[in-house]
């Protein structure tokens, strides 16, 4: 269980998040949507320990995330797959996956899991020795997710996996997620611009605008139009406030 309570955070003097509170239950997929600059990536940075909250509480399985280093957060079972994929461009596909397992000590199990992941995704297996920088956008995204999964997280923070990808690739990326969730317990906090796509996987949706949660609903009680109307309303109402 992830729980944010009254979290405020920002970079330098600028406040990005104002009093953000929400939860992600075990096994749940929660979509976090909203316009550019709403604070979605900042929310993920605060959870993964890259950015310290200025106020508020973050709890994960009873531990206080707000005080943990990024490395501690990873070992506690939270992985963050960043926006823009951020694969290591001069390392091979395989080496990227191994770096994802950096915090683990069970080297032989890691090796088996790397092979297993590549076997499940032939599109990557063909490129296993290629530098990740030479992969296509879709391949890099699948690799980035695979790399995050290598730490065996129970919560995956996934930032804009469909950004800049063709529709056929987007569905492949989502397949990776669905496949993983069918195999092991995993909660996902999914940041998306693509609301329709997010609603196919998420059980709950949160709209973040201007650094505040302005709307929250269960996926079956809402639809893309309603969600979009909330964040446009918020955008027009008080600006996005970077």
């Amino acid at each position, binding site marked *: 269980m992830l729980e944010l309570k009254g979290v405020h955070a920002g970079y330098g003097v600028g406040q990005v998040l104002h009093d953000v509170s929400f939860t992600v239950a075990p096994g749940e997929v929660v979509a976090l949507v909203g316009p550019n600059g709403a604070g979605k990536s900042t929310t993920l940075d605060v959870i993964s320990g890259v950015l310290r909250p200025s106020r508020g509480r973050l709890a994960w399985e009873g531990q206080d995330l707000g005080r943990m280093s*990024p490395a501690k957060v990873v070992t506690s079972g939270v992985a963050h797959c960043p926006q823009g994929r951020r694969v290591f*461009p001069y390392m091979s596909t395989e080496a990227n996956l191994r770096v994802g397992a950096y*915090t683990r000590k069970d*080297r032989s199990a890691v090796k088996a899991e790397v092979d297993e992941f590549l076997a499940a995704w032939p599109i990557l297996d063909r490129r296993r020795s290629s530098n990740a920088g030479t992969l296509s956008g879709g391949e890099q995204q699948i690799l980035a997710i695979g790399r995050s999964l290598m730490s065996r997280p129970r919560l995956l923070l996934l930032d804009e996996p469909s950004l800049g990808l063709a529709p056929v690739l987007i569905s492949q990326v989502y397949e990776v997620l669905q496949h993983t969730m069918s195999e092991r317990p995993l909660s996902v906090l999914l940041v998306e611009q693509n609301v329709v796509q997010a609603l196919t996987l998420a059980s709950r949706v949160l709209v973040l605008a201007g650094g505040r949660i302005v709307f929250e609903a269960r996926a079956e009680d809402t639809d893309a139009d309603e969600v979009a109307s909330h964040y446009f309303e918020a955008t027009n109402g008080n600006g996005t406030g970077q």
Partner: protein
Amino acid sequence: MSFFIQQLINGLGVGAQYALWCVGYGLVYQVLGLMHFAHGDSLIFSIFVASSLMASGLPFWLVVLLGMLLAAVVAIGIERGLYRPIMSRGLVFLAFIAAMAGGFVLRSIVQVIWGVQPRLFPEGLLPSGAWTIGGVHIGILPMTNLAIALVIVVTFTLYLSRTRQGQAILAVAQDRYACDLMGISVNKIVALVYGLSGAIGFIGLILYAVNYRSVTIGLGFSITMKAFIAAIIGGIGSIRGAVFGGLALGLLEAFVAGYISTTLMDAIVTACLILFLLFRPYGITGRRELVKL
């Protein structure tokens, strides 16, 4: 012909030292994007301490080990105390100036403690003499230099490509934010990089001391410059580049000194540096950027 071969061997022997100076220097650049201009002076400080340890009667192998350790600690100290506070404010260019200043301070400390006299090293620390094959004298010491440098470079390359820690170093060089998210403690890896650059550079300097049997304060800046020139010639930021660059620089110096003029050696070498900067700034082995966004 025999003169040519002798110059070739001497050039490789000296180039091996340059390569070791350059490996650490290039690694710091690759991982942190910083010109480590206090590199040479931090090594000089360590070798002066080492020379005093030698004089106190410690065995050579122990002096080498302690010297490597000290060089690593000094390099880490420079990073923590000088580079990091400046780099963390995003002032990369100022960090470069601070590096020069740090080098100057170290040099002055050395001068206060040991004075300006060169420190002497005894003869026979490594096998010397020469083999004579078909009238050509092949120096044993330059060959030993080359062999030691190659063993270190190969070991280091394997360490980077095969170990979890080595891979983390390469990852930090490519994307520090992503490393945070992978649970890599970036600050620890950075310290490790500086430590390695000091330790490996110190081996290069010990070879120099064994070859020339004296070390002066002024050598510090010269080490930094050799490492810098070798890095540019070979291709900055890769181990292969450091080795190629170091050996190429050693050969260039040996042949210029042997066939043209020892007086002009530094001028010609520096002119080559300028040519590389103008026409091939990524060096002999370097690559142009390849990043897909």
